[in-house]
């Protein structure tokens, strides 16, 4: 096998024989399958606050996770270094799960599996660049936010980059490696006026070079948007309470899809029949205006991967087509037990975590309506364009997502900005209430973080402008 392109062979002299030894050890007690996940991750973070560079941080994570599967059981252990004895020890620990006396599954010679594409081919990784260049971005953001309005009293700007090398080797003979860049900038502002204080936030990035911070994601643009939100909120009125018609703006409000249906369609919950979506494939779960996909193959996106964290190529997976539920997001274990095809959605936070079925970039396809017509068609409702986080109870199907920038719609016109409010709905039925889909699909600017079972991973979402007939808005104004 040509492992030469992988840092693990170049820098740490891991050989094919080593890999076979570890896998054989992992299957020594009778497991059906084993895999190794080597990870070497470097990250940098810089924070500007009170107009000075407060901190610079570097992080190094190096280790190997060993997984053994025996039927529905998973054994897992990891080593915090690439020391041979420690990896063998981890393999033996993971093997404990199989708990059989006989020698287990056969290890096939790993052969390279390469999807033959690079979704994040960039000339220079941000991690390689001088810190001074990154500091300049933060200073630009700070100046722009303060210049936006004298009521901006605090600005916190942060920059993070990450370079992640992975090598994934399986006992059924697949070896994949990848080099995954990531960069992100955030700007948070506090605005104060007459004893009132409000905050604004904007961020962006992706699997990109430092040049990503131009155009919409220029530090000045990020800062001005953050400042605009904080100033706007100073004049916000109480949000309404009760069910009402809601228009969601394009882009980040796609978090609706992530919470309302995405998590509920992760295969593990459906295999165990703990999801409100279990058994609904082939049934109508949305209005026929809705087609929803999870696509891990969009170049340079935050949720994209050449191969997932189990070494399988990512895909475009249609979750809902014209309102009909098509299928689930699979990892290896669930796909095998459900006798389903792999979708390339096995992901993990790092080498010390077990892979799980997870989303990548999840969005709704554009429709045909003019966004302005959609707003004009609403007599009384809410127009929500920016959101904080969301959460879902996949068993009951109830989900929330919290608007951070929203306006009242009165007689077809956008009027007063309202304070932040949580919207709550039911996953398997909310998309049936979609009565219009705009022609303006937009993906978010590269800020999504998704949590499940204590593991966080980068994701992306997207949405065109949509209208929902009725959803409960959790304000205070009855």
């Amino acid at each position, binding site marked *: 096998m040509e492992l030469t392109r992988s840092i693990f062979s170049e820098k740490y002299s891991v050989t094919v024989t080593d890999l076979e030894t570890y896998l054989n050890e992992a299957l020594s007690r009778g497991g059906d399958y084993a895999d190794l996940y080597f990870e070497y991750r470097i990250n940098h973070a810089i924070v500007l606050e009170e107009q*000075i560079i*407060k901190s610079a941080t570097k992080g190094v994570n190096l280790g190997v996770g060993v997984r053994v599967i025996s039927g529905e059981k998973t054994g897992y252990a990891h080593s915090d270094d690439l020391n041979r004895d420690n990896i063998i020890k981890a393999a033996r620990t993971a093997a404990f799960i199989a708990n059989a006396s006989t020698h287990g599954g056969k290890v096939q010679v790993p052969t390279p599996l390469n999807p033959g594409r690079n979704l994040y081919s960039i000339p220079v990784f941000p991690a390689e660049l001088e810190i001074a260049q990154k500091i300049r971005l933060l200073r630009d953001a700070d100046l722009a936010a303060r210049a936006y309005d004298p009521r901006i009293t605090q600005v916190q700007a942060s920059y993070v980059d990450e370079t992640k090398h992975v090598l994934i080797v399986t006992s059924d003979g697949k070896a994949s490696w990848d080099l995954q860049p990531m960069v992100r900038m955030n700007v948070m502002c506090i605005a104060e006026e007459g004893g009132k204080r*409000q905050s604004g936030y904007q961020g962006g990035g992706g699997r990109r070079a430092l040049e990503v911070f131009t155009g919409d994601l220029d530090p000045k643009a990020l800062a001005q948007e953050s400042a605009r939100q904080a100033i706007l909120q100073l004049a916000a009125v109480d949000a309404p309470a009760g069910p009402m018609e809601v228009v969601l703006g394009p882009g980040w409000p796609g978090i609706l899809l992530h919470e309302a249906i995405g998590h509920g369609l992760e295969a593990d919950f459906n295999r165990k029949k*703990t999801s409100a979506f279990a058994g609904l494939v082939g049934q109508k779960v949305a209005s026929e205006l809705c087609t929803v996909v999870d696509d891990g193959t969009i170049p340079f996106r935050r949720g994209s991967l050449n191969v997932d964290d189990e070494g399988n190529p990512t895909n475009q997976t249609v979750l809902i087509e014209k309102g009909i539920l098509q299928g689930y997001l699979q990892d290896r274990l669930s796909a095998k037990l459900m006798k389903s095809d792999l979708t390339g959605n096995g992901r993990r936070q790092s080498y010390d975590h077990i892979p799980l079925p997870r989303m990548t970039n999840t969005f709704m396809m554009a429709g045909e309506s003019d966004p302005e017509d959609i707003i004009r068609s609403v007599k009384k409702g809410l127009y929500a364009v920016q959101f*904080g986080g969301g959460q879902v*109870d996949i068993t009951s199907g109830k*989900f929330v997502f919290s608007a951070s920038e929203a306006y009242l719609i009165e007689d077809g016109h956008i009027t007063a900005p309202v304070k932040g409010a949580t919207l*709550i709905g039911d996953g398997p039925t909310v998309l049936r209430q979609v009565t219009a889909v705009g022609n303006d699909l937009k993906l978010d600017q590269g800020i999504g973080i998704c949590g499940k079972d204590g593991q966080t991973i980068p994701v992306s979402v997207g949405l065109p402008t949509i209208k929902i007939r009725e959803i409960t808005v959790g*304000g205070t104004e009855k």
Partner: protein
Amino acid sequence: MPDLQASAQHVIDHARKAGATTADVMIREDNSFSVTVRMGEVETLKEAISRSLMLRVFVGKRTATSHTSDLNDKMVEQLVDETVEMAKLTSEDESGGLPDEAVRRDGFADLQLLDPSWDDLTPAERIDLAVQTEAAALSTDKAITNSEGSSFEYTRSKTALANTRGFNGAYEGTGGALFCVPIAQSKDGMQRDHWMSAARHRKQMESPQEIGKKAAARALRRLGARKVPTGEVAVVFDPLSARSLLGHVFEAVSGSAIYRRSSFLIDQIGASVAADNITIVDDALMPAGLGSSPFDDEGVPTRVTPIIENGVLRNYLHSAYTARKLSGRPTGNGSRAASGVVTIGPTNFYLKAGQYTPDEIISSIKKGLYVVELIGFGVNTVTGDYSRGAVGIWIEDGKFVHPVQEVTIAGNLREMLKNIEMVGNDVTFLGSIAAPTLKVTNMVISGE
């Protein structure tokens, strides 16, 4: 833990050689085991030793931090050199520096953090704890038809901290936890809920039977949940959901939110910010407390800090940095994030028990919602604005009537704290932050 302390000292010595004016380093080693059992079978078993090193250096008044999971000497020395170089590129910050309190000390109070008897449990016995817990839930009622599983987790961790002022200390602690997440089903659909117990000592943990039964009862009582009309009523938070309110108070009194002016509690020391039955403390010295430790992540001796006394705000929580920024003193709440950056963390941050039983509180309500779970992130600690998804039980004339879901509760934390009319006697410790049952006189429920 002479090995970890020696490694920490080596890092400090190297940092000085590399040009650091001052530095501190924390090394943590976690020996952890976890098992998840579902429908009687082991689903996952995980065991590992994890190490992490977190370094902070100062070059004059400039600082940088780093962290690594790779503790190989050569690797660490290279990282120390890079960290010193990085620090030279940051800005001078007058408030920076090691805490004055973190100096050489002999001996620390024994806070009973360690119970070595956990180690006597064989892997089979550990698995059995989870099996028994789930079995107890599944056998409670035939409506418990499924399970997200039960798990047992155990960690024995060592922490060593050293700095250039001669501080070099270490402590070791254990912690076990048992979780149970059963699913109940009826014609109206599925409902899940959970119960757990967490303790540093084996004998403090609830039995598998108790945990399983409680979890099952919690899931069962949610069957048939529905929306309620939008309106303004009394809201009772059970100890689990009340705990999240305390979490918001913790964020609002942390020194970093105060100097950033991003808290609804700024400029209010000495002012009445809550009902006069409210007393909140941060107590790092609680024997065997889940959040107890002899010194914080900067080497500052820990203590008991009154936060709110009978409704009056007394103190903010500080690291060395926020204390200097706000002319206070470090409170022993310096906490290192995984990145190595020092932030503010709670120790045992809790609202002291009141006089009422949960039943007395529920009986006092004519019309209201008893909240058992809150979801979402609709809390703005800058303004105090609060709006979250809630699951609970509807109360009428002092009695539970039916379960409720798909509603939100909204208000403002400032008013919610002032409107806590009754405080329960049932403080429940499941982590660093704890609370008893709390009754808030009125909030807006949004539903139908």
